[in-house]
C-alpha cells in the first residue's frame, strides 16, 4: 500500500516544487517505487524541474476525466527507473480537480507505487486542499521568515481540519522542512533560526536545506538537486529523505562555514 505524502506550505516561492522533485528522486534512488504528482493545474512547473517538459502528452486532468490511461499519462524519469511523474495540465484550471477524480487516480497509483508525492500549489484554496485532502503525511516547506512561518501555521491548521485523516478522526503526520536557510544571516539577526521556527510551529524537524546556488542551477537544468551529490543542498535533501525513512542522521549546515586560511588571504 502506497504512502501518500503532500508537500505544502501555504506561501508561494518557498521551494515546494524543488522539494517534491528532490524528495521523490531521493526516495527512488533508495529503491522505492515513487510517483510525484503536480497539483498546480494551470501553472505546472514540476515537469520543468524534473526535466521532462517535452515528454508531456497527457496530464492529470486527462486522467481524472478518463481521457487517457495511467500508462499513457505517467512519464518515466530518464535517470531513475523507479520514478514516475504525473504532470499537471497547463490549459485547464484547478476546478477540474474533483475529490472523486483525485481519489480514483490515487487508488489506481497506490496499487503499484510505494510512495505518492503530491506537489501542492501555493495558497489555501481548492487546488491546495485537493493536494492535501488524501495525504497521510505532510512535508511543511518553510523559509526562515515570519510570513512563511505564519502561512505554514495556517496550512497545518487546514491539514488538521480539512484532510481525510481529520474527517476520520486521525491526524496527518507532519514534518517540518526548513529551506533556503542561511546561517550567516541568522547570526546577523536577519533570519529566524531553526529553533525559532521549531518553537513557533511545534512540529518535528525533518531537515534544514541551506540556501544554495545549486538549487537554481538544478531547476534550470531540469535535474532534481539530489543528483548533485557534491552540493550542500543535494546532501541536505538526501539526509532529510534518509531521516524520513527512519535513519538517524545529525542535522548539518546549521552553522556558518568557517573560511579556510587560503580563502581568508586570497578572498573567497
Amino acid at each position, binding site marked *: 500500500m502506497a504512502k501518500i505524502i503532500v508537500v505544502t506550505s501555504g506561501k508561494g516561492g518557498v521551494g515546494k516544487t524543488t522539494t517534491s522533485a528532490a524528495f521523490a528522486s531521493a526516495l527512488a534512488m533508495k529503491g522505492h517505487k515513487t510517483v510525484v504528482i503536480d497539483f498546480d493545474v494551470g501553472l505546472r512547473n514540476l515537469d520543468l524541474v524534473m526535466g521532462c517538459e517535452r515528454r508531456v502528452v497527457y496530464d492529470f486532468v486527462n486522467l481524472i476525466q478518463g481521457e487517457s490511461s495511467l500508462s499513457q499519462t505517467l512519464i518515466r524519469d530518464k535517470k531513475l527507473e523507479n520514478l514516475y511523474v504525473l504532470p499537471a495540465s497547463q490549459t485547464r484550471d484547478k476546478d477540474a480537480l474533483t475529490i472523486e477524480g483525485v481519489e480514483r487516480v490515487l487508488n489506481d497509483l497506490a496499487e503499484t507505487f510505494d510512495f505518492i508525492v503530491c506537489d501542492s500549489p501555493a495558497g489555501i484554496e481548492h487546488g491546495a486542499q485537493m493536494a492535501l485532502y488524501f495525504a497521510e503525511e505532510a512535508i511543511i516547506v518553510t523559509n526562515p521568515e515570519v510570513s512563511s512561518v505564519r502561512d505554514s*501555521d*495556517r496550512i*497545518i*491548521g*487546514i491539514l*488538521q*481540519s480539512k484532510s481525510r485523516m481529520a474527517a476520520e478522526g486521525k491526524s496527518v503526520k507532519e514534518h517540518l522542512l526548513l529551506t533556503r536557510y542561511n546561517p550567516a544571516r541568522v547570526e546577523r539577526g536577519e533570519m529566524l533560526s531553526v529553533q525559532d521556527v521549531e518553537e*513557533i510551529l511545534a512540529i518535528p524537524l525533518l531537515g534544514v536545506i541551506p540556501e544554495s546556488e545549486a538549487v537554481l542551477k538544478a531547476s534550470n537544468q531540469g535535474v532534481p538537486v539530489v543528483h548533485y551529490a557534491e552540493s550542500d543542498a543535494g546532501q541536505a535533501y538526501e539526509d532529510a529523505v534518509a531521516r524520513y525513512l527512519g535513519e538517524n542522521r545529525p542535522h548539518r549546515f546549521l552553522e556558518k562555514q568557517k573560511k579556510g586560511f587560503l580563502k581568508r588571504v586570497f578572498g573567497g
Partner: protein
Amino acid sequence: MKTGMVPLTTIQLHSTDLNALQDELSRRKAEAPALFAGLPCLLSLADLPTDVAGLQQLVSLLRQHGLALIGVRSCPAELATELASLQLADFGQASRPPRSKPAEETPDKSTTDESGCRRAVKVHEGNVRSGQQLYFDGDLYIIGMVSPGAEVLATGDIHVLGVLRGKALAGIKGSPDAIVSCVHFDAQLVAIAGHYQLFENGHALTNQSVLVRLDDDQLVIKGAEK
C-alpha cells in the same frame, strides 16, 4: 416532563433605531462569528417604545443575524396578540425592575450565572493554529499553544497551558469576573467582557506565566515571580 433551570441571554436594546442595531450586530458578528449563531435568547421590550411594524422589523433583523429568538419579556399589552404570529413566546414581565440607567455599558453578570450553576468546561487538547477560531460557552482550557493569528473565545475563563501568541477573549457575553491565564504570555490581544488590550510591542511580562483579570474596568496583568 422534566423541569430545570437553564440560563438564557436577554437582549435589552437601548433604542429601536434599526440602522444602529444593524451596525452593532454586524460589528459584534465580525468580532466573534460563532457568538450569535443559533444563540437562544429573549428580547426585552421594557422601556422600548415600539409598534407592531417596528417589532416585526426588529425580530426579523435579529433572526437574520442568526439569533434564535424564542420569546419576549415585558411585552406591552397591545403587542401581546402579535407574538404568536412571530413565533415568539410571552415570558411575562421582568422579575426585577428595568435598570435605571439603560445607557450604562457594564454588562449584567446575571445573564451567564442566572441559574447559579457552575459554568461548563471544555478541554481542548492540541494547538490552535493561525486562522483557526475556537469558541466555547463556558470555561475553556487549552492544552497546547495558541498561534499568532488564532483566536480563542469563551463566555467564561480561558486558560492556556502553553504559549499564548494569538488573541484570547474571555467573558465575551459580559462576565467581568472571567480570567485569562497562560503559561507563556506573548498575546496579540487579550479581552475580558469587552475590555481589551493590544500588545503591539510586547509586554514587560512577555514569556512569563501570567493571569489577566478585570479590576474596575481595567485589565490587570500579573506575572508569577521568577
